[in-house]
Every structure is written in C-alpha cells, then in structure tokens.
C-alpha cells in the first residue's frame, strides 16, 4: 500500500515537474515583442553620462549663434538643426559646469550651417572663416584653447561633409578638414571610412529629424506591413547631374532602372502626404546615398520600424560603437544594387523578425532622436556618452607652455580673411 502511494507521489512529482518545464518553454517561445540591444561595446546605449563628464560652454558673442537664428528661423527645422539643439541642451544639462577648470570638454557654440539660401540650403562658403574667427575669439579670451590647441574641445559640424565645409565632394576632399580643427573632436553627421572628411575620433550623429512631427503620425502596430520595399526621393538630380552617374555614384539611378516595374518596390519621386504612414506599412526602406552618404531616411526608418537597407559603400553610421547596425539593417554594396531584389527576398524570415524586434526597442528609437524636451537615452545623451568614452584625455594633448602645433596660416587663402 505504502509502496503504491510512494510510487503515486513520485509520478505526481515528475509529471508536475515536466508540466513546469513545458510551461517555461512555452513562455520563452512566446512571441517576444522587442529585444535588448547590446552593442559592440556592451550595453552602452542605456548608459547615463551624467556624473561621468563635465562640459564647459563658451559664451560667444551672438553673431556666432543667436543672430543667425534671428535672421533665419528655418535653421531650427532643417536636417542640420543638430548644432542648435545641442547648444540648447548643453546650456541646461546637468553635465554643464560653470567652472572651466574642472571641465573635461569644452564646447564652442558656432552655427556654421545657418547661412541659408532662399531655398533653404546652407551655404558653407563663409563657414571656415566663421569657425576660424570663433576659435581665435576663444583662444584670446580663455586660456584653455592654447593649453591643448583644441585637444579637449569639441565642435558640432552637421554639414554635408562635416568640417570640410563644402557640399561638393571633390571640393570637400580638396579642402580637407579645417586645419584648426585638426586636434579637436568633431560631432558630425558625415561618416565614411577612408575619407578625408571623417577625422579619427569623430562622433557620428544622426541628422536632425523633428521628433514631434514623426511621433504624431504613428499608426496602430497591428496594421499589416504590406509594402516590401519603400523609397521616396530623387533618382536623378536633374538640376545638377541630369545624365546621372555623379549623383549617388549612380546607385540611385541603378535602383530606378532595375526596379521601376517591380511590384515589390514601391519607389517614386513623388512625395506623398502619407509618407510616414507608408513607412510604417513597409518592411524594408531604402537608404541610398545621395550627394553625401548620410540621410534622414535612416532615422525615419528606425523610428517607424522599417528595416533600413543601406546602400552606401564604407559608410559610418551614427553611434556605431553603441548600436550594432549590422544586426539591425541590411547593407548592400553599390555594385550589388542590380541584385537588390534577390538579396532582399532571400533574407530568411527569422532574420527579418529579429531585426524588427531590435528596431522595436524603444531605446533604439530614442537614440536616434533629438527629443524636445530631452529624454534619457536620446541622441544628446549618446553624444555625451561618446564623449565620456573618450575620457580620460591622453596626457599628450596637453602642450607645454609656448608650444604650438597648429599652423594658423594653413588652408586656402580665402579662409584667412577675418569674419
């Protein structure tokens, strides 16, 4: 009798245990909403920079910053608006210090991308002179520039080719990075490997995209994603390069020529009013290069959960040391563009779902936005994280008194004129 009971208890226990195991497995197999992002340097996306660094903001005369905004308020809404918003953020941030002696980093608020044409495009012709003038101002009014010749200073240069200050790639390469900024850290949107205009140690940030505008256009996530590939934009820059071949190194024209009659590719130059909504109904969003390799489409794709297909050789994506872009996006070489449909349709469904889960992570979306008001983990904090990761400074940047490294007369003659 007891033997039977013991046997009964034992079998009961084992069956209960098996049931528990089964349930646990079920729970883990259930559809996961989103996945944590662990970047190449660990889970640095969610780091908090407050307390890890101190930034001193120089007080420049308003002709370097505020005057430009008064002249043209469009600077706050175009894709180069990062320089204005970083300035605003730092003025109110807890990492700001009023005591420059204890500062790790020094920020110079000069809006070099705010000289706009009537069409809204920024002219970079005066920017080198403006930057030079700003640097000479801070070097004469504060001793900190001369201490390191800019080694612990950082500048925000969100223009097409960063601190090369030109919109044409050839001219930009010829000019190179402004010689006075050689030792400073540059926060820029441009990033391309083996390129003159990407200085060693620069922090690549996403272009500015208006957060409220995008966040007000969400559609319910249960809306089925029925568009396979989505793209809206120019294929041929008819004004500057009518035959094609220069614009986007021919990649955008190749996309159009190969896939204009493909029903899976919803591509066009017509910009619809439902652009944001359409992106949320698409699985893949093309992010090809234009005149410069970066574009706001990457930000839009990440916000709306559309897997970015990046067609730009050697591009360096924003916050590449914190965000594992290979796991999130699809990279296609420019020479493989004619096979784009094959490449995309042969991606396994598990991989696509994995990427969508990573994109659904709110930390990911937050990191791409310059949120107003600032939120933890947004692009501002990622910039500060990047700066914090570069600390402590290499003691070699500190120059001996009287030692100078930079040549102030270097560069094209036109840059040397005072501004």
């Amino acid at each position, binding site marked *: 009798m007891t033997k039977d009971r013991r046997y009964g208890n034992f079998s009961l226990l084992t069956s209960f245990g098996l049931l528990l195991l089964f349930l646990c497995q079920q729970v883990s197999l259930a559809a996961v909403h989103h996945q944590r992002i662990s970047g190449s340097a660990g889970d640095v996306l969610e780091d908090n920079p407050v307390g890890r660094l101190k930034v001193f903001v120089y007080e420049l005369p308003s002709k370097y910053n505020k005057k430009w905004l008064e002249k043209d308020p469009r600077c706050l809404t175009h894709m180069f608006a990062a320089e204005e918003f970083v300035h605003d953020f730092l003025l109110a941030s807890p990492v700001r210090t009023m005591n420059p002696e204890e500062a790790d980093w020094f920020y110079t608020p000069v809006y070099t991308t705010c000289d706009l044409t009537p069409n809204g495009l920024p002219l970079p012709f005066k920017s080198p002179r403006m930057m030079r003038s700003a640097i000479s101002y801070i070097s004469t009014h504060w001793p900190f520039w001369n201490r390191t010749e800019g080694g612990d200073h950082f500048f925000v240069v969100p223009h097409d080719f960063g601190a090369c200050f030109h919109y044409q790639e050839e001219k930009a390469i010829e000019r190179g990075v402004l010689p006075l900024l050689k030792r400073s850290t540059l926060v820029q949107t441009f990033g391309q490997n083996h390129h003159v205009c990407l200085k060693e140690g620069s922090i690549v940030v996403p272009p500015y995209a208006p957060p409220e505008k995008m966040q007000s256009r969400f559609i319910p996530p249960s809306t089925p994603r029925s568009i396979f590939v989505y793209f809206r934009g120019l294929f041929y820059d008819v004004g500057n390069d009518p*035959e094609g071949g220069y614009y986007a190194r021919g990649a955008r024209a190749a996309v159009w020529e190969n*896939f204009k009659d493909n*029903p899976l590719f919803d591509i066009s130059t017509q910009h619809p009013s439902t652009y944001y909504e359409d992106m949320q109904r698409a699985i893949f969003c093309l992010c090809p290069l234009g005149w410069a390799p970066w574009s706001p489409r990457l930000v839009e794709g990440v916000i709306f959960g559309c897997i970015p297909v990046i067609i730009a050789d050697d591009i360096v994506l924003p916050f590449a040391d914190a965000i594992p872009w290979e796991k999130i996006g699809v990279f296609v070489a420019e020479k493989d563009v004619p096979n784009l449909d094959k490449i995309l349709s042969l991606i396994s469904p598990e991989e696509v779902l994995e990427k969508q889960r990573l994109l659904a992570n709110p930390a990911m979306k937050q990191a791409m936005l310059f949120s107003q008001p600032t939120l933890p983990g947004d692009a501002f904090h990622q910039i500060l994280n990047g700066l914090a990761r570069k600390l402590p400074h290499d003691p070699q940047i500190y120059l001996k008194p009287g030692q100078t490294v930079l040549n102030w007369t270097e560069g094209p003659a036109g840059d040397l004129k005072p501004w």
Partner: protein
Amino acid sequence: MKKVTGSSHRLARMRSKNRSGFNSEQASETSFRLMPVSHFRVFIQCMFCIGTLILGFRLTTESSFLKASFQNPEDPFTRISARTDSSASTGTESQFDLQLRREFANGSKGSRLAYNGTIVHSSGGVRVDVGRHAILIRPWPHPDPFEVLHAHHLIKRVQLEQRQLYGSKESKPIIAITTTFVRTFQAVHLTGLLHTLSVIPVPVTWIVMEAGGVTNETAHFLSLAHVHRLLHLGFDIPMPAGLNERSKLEAQMRVEGLRYVQKEKLEGVVVFADESNIHSLEFFTEAQKVDWVGAVSVGLLGFAGFEESPQSGIVHVHDGRVEARENHILFAARQAAAAPRFEPQVQGPSCDSNGNLIGWHIFDPLPLEGEVHKGMRAAQNRRLEWANFVLNARAVWKTEGNQPEWIRSWDEWANPEDGSTPDIKAIVRSDQWVKVLGNCGRKVLLWWLRAEARADSKHPNKWILDESLEIIVPAKSTPWPRRPVRRAAPPPPAPAGGTGTKHGAGSRVSSGKVRRPKRKQDQTNVS
C-alpha cells in the same frame, strides 16, 4: 553654339545652379589654383572643345564607347556611361572634362599611394572615387517570379508575427450575410466585397442570398472568393425596382439567411455585409468584440445633396420620441459662411461621455423638390440599416442559445404577425443592451456607397462585349432621387447618379416619392 569657358567654372556652376548665393570669389580662387596644374591638360581640353563643336554632343558617346570597347568584355552588366537626351546639352562638356579630371586624379592618386609620408592634403585616400560612375543595369531588369514568391512568403510571415503580437486575441469566425441580385452594378459591388472577405484572417462563412434565384453570373463572381465556406442561396422573388420595396425584400432575405444560421447552428459573429458597403479590415476585428448585439457607425457616400450638409442636421431618436433639430442658428451661420464641401454623413449609435448608448444618428436626406418636408414623421419612419448591427450567432438560435432574456426570441422579431418588415433593431428589447463598437461609434468602420444604375439598365454578360453595339441610348434617371431642394454649387462629377445618368438631360423627379420613370419611348433593346 555654347561659349567655351574654363572647365572649373562649369564644374562649380553645375552644382551651384540651384544655390543663388554663389560666390564668384570662390570660383576665381579655384580656377586660380588649377592654373599651374598642367598646360597639357588645357591643350587637351581645347582640342576636345573644338571636337565637340564640330561633332556635336556625340563626342561624349563616341569616346565612352571607345573606352568601353577596351574594357573587360566579361562584364555582365551593360554600362551606361552616357545618356544622350536633350537635357544633357548643358552638361556634356563639363562631364567630359570631369571624366578627364577623374582619370587625372586617378593617376595622381596612384602615385600618391606610393608616397608614405604624412599626407597633409590627400586627394581622397584609398577608396574615394568622385567622378562619373556607371549606372549598373542587369541584362533583364524585370521581376523574377521566384524572388517575388520568396518576398511574398516573407511578407506573410511578417504579417503573421504582427497579428500575434498586436492583433486581437479573439478569433471568432465571421458569418457574412449578403443580399445580391444580377444587375449592372453587381460586378462593381460584389468584386470589392469578395476580395475584402477573402483577406480576413479568421474563417469566414459567406451566405449569399440572391433575389430571383441562383444565377450563373453571381456564381461566377463567387467562385473567385477564398472563404472558408460559401453558401449561395436563391430567393425566388425577383428584386423590385423601387428603393423602399427593395429594402423590404432585402430584409426578408436576410432573415432567411439568419434562418440558415439558426438551422445549422453556426457559431461566430454575424455581420451584414451588404455588397454596396466598403468595409475596412478593422471592422472585422472590432466585430469580434461583440457579446450579443453590437452597433457600429456606417458612413454614407453619395446621398442626394452631398455637396453641402443636409438641412436636417442630426436628428436624435430617443426611444420613439424625436427630439428637435439641434443647433439651428449655428447651422444657418455655418451655411452662410462656408463654401459647399463634402461632409460625410454617418449613421449609427451615439454615446454620452460615459460610453453608454443614448441615441442614434439617422440619415435624413434633404427633402426633394416639390416635397413638403414632413418634419418629425419622416425621421421617425427612417430605420437603421442592417449593416449597423453585428450579432453573436447564438442570438438567433432557437434552442440551446442560452440567450439572455433581453433578446427577443426568433419568432417574436423575425416573423412579425402584422406582416411588416422585420427590423433588426427589434432583436433587443431595449437599447441599453446594445454594445457600441468602434470607439463608441466615433470611428466609421464601413461606408455605404449609394450608387446604383437604373433598375432596367443592361449590361453585357460577364462584362465582355462579343460584338460591337449597334444602338446605344443613354438612360436618363436612376432609382435614387436626384435633386434636393437647394444647391449652393454645381454638383462635382461624382458617382452620385450612377453611370447610367451621365448624359441625363435633366429629367425632373416631380414628386417626392420614388416613382418608376416613364420610359416607354426610351425602351430600346441592347443585346
């Protein structure tokens, strides 16, 4: 003939065409910098400029053809390095010059690569290649069916995942009851409906009641539907032409459909999917939320007088008592101020702030020419459409339904003793038990397209014309009443009248009632 100027000017001008702030200083600077580069290059430029002047714009094509012919023949792609269209006229020379420059730059790059010192001003490092690239096009740039198939599998998998994550957890089967009959616009309406029902993710039982018996035309349409179960039932009485009689017959047909549900004891959610309705897929997910009886808002498209808000505004019907029209002054002021615009009319439940049903919005069209508006009585006669209601299939079961006592039994409401038309609203004893769906009626989930051809208009079988038509006579009026009392602007070209009335020479509808038009003289047989 274009003036030949320095290539650097062209280069700069090419890019800065759209930028009006171009600084001439910069241009002269750059040209100044390039002068000491090479005289040989300038010479070559001059030679080619002269050559272009003589040969015209084909020089670029010729030279690139020559270049291509010396390239690797195993290249699988056609390299388009020049496009000869007229828009290239301004750019030809500079493009060629740029090509030259690129080759020059390549050459200099090659020598620079060997130089190991600190390059202060490098022309691009290892892999930057600014210049003209070829536009790669594969030999047959059209979609490949296997890839399309793969892509569709991918899309399906992604959508399945979306449904699992975000979709509603309930998946009750849908029972759609539709009434139809063979007529000109049947193809228009039925095709849309069948495709909608085919993509609903839950199993769909489609009960199609056809007036006038089962016909081959309808069966042909229904064969295209992908539903779980399709029932094509015939109703022997043919559909009358008048609107009122039509709605009465439709009600009877729907009751027949419900009788089928009752007989077979089908489970799920009963939806009255009229063929002239446009459903959004959200409607079917909302319908899953119903307990016993639910009400949704239906938008109306194409009612008479849609170019301005109907005079009646919104009429609330509270349990039989009709309240006075609201906002009379406001309405008049609005009318005086606003230009005529399309305001969609919505018929359905209305809630108070707590979400409880307090009344119904009923469509009350503008009074027609010559008709004295009957005021409250007209509104009272209006009924809600069957499409406004969604039922739990168990509500119509006779036995084993376990219906709550506030649902009338089948015999009570479906077969009224006085012979009047059964009304779906009569299935509940009082309004308070009706569940309002779609964000308390504020979200319009389906639209009723009131567009219909004439009752006796002809159409070719399966919409295929075997031989050309000999005599074509335009029809003149539609079953829907056409002209309202007031019109602020001429009516926009819209399907309000149906295709049959495009050439209508203003036939007047004299009395308010819909009457059969006098057409003896127009009767022409179009075979």
